[in-house]
């Protein structure tokens, strides 16, 4: 008998792992470079989920101090992820600029065609 309550409590972790695995597959197996970068940003986002899920306290509120509230969710992962989002978009911009240059140089952004043009596929 499957315990649905336990699955619901572990659902965040399960979905996080599924998103990580799927986006890792997109990065490894897909040959198109824009698709690879989409996969990379999905992977980053699943890492945000990995950090934010344990920070939540059921029944707590957002960490904004008010007199009537006793329980707050943990603010420290939020701070870390706020930094990670901005760094993520910086690396994404750099990667996309490289994709544009690859398109200029080879006329394609498919990995196997570039390897063929280089002659070592």
């Amino acid at each position, binding site marked *: 008998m499957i315990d649905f309550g336990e699955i*619901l409590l572990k659902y965040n972790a399960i*979905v996080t792992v599924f998103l990580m695995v799927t986006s890792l597959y997109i990065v490894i197996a897909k040959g198109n470079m824009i698709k690879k970068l989409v996969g990379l940003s999905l992977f980053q986002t699943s890492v945000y989920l990995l950090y934010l899920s344990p920070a939540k306290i059921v029944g707590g509120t957002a960490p904004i101090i008010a007199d009537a509230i006793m329980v707050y969710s943990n603010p420290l992962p939020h701070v870390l992820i706020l930094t990670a989002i901005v760094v993520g978009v*910086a690396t994404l911009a750099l990667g996309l600029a490289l994709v544009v240059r690859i398109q200029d140089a080879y006329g394609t952004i498919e990995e196997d065609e570039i390897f063929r043009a280089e002659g070592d596929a």
Partner: protein
Amino acid sequence: MEILVDAVLLTLLVVITLAILFQRNLFAVVLLAGAYSFLMASIMLVLDAVDVAMTEAAVGAGISTALFLATLYLTHGKEYLQPNFKFQSILVVVLAGGMLIWGMWDMPEFGVMQAPLHENTAPGYLDASKNHLMPPNVVTAVLADYRSFDTLGETTVIFTAGIGVLLILRGRKKPKKSKNKAENSHET
């Protein structure tokens, strides 16, 4: 109730990820990634990370999508079908996923207050922002007051990436699309 809303949104996230995996029109892939970011922002809202949700909606769904669309304009809009089925990558991915599940299985349960994460550093910051007359938003207090040198480092990273993009795109030869090039680097 919170757990239930969270579960429904997470399921939608899985559906969108699968759609991104199988969709081969890159325009659709980029727009699905934008929808994914908005959905992720809603999940962050449910997880009480309001500041992160706002940043994700602005940066993940806004700036990233704009950058992807600008790149798409300069390249092809279609991903080719790859004939060879990549068995090795599936093997690697399943192994990694299995290890992740194995490692995460005995983590504290979702939303429990007695988890070690909530008992050590965080209460100190919560009390300190109350007692030191910091901004009532604790995330702001930590980010901009207690750990503001981290934020300085973060702006250095953005500055470096901006310089990198400018240097990479500077030597492009096609003069007819130079207008779009300037737009692309400006958004960074």
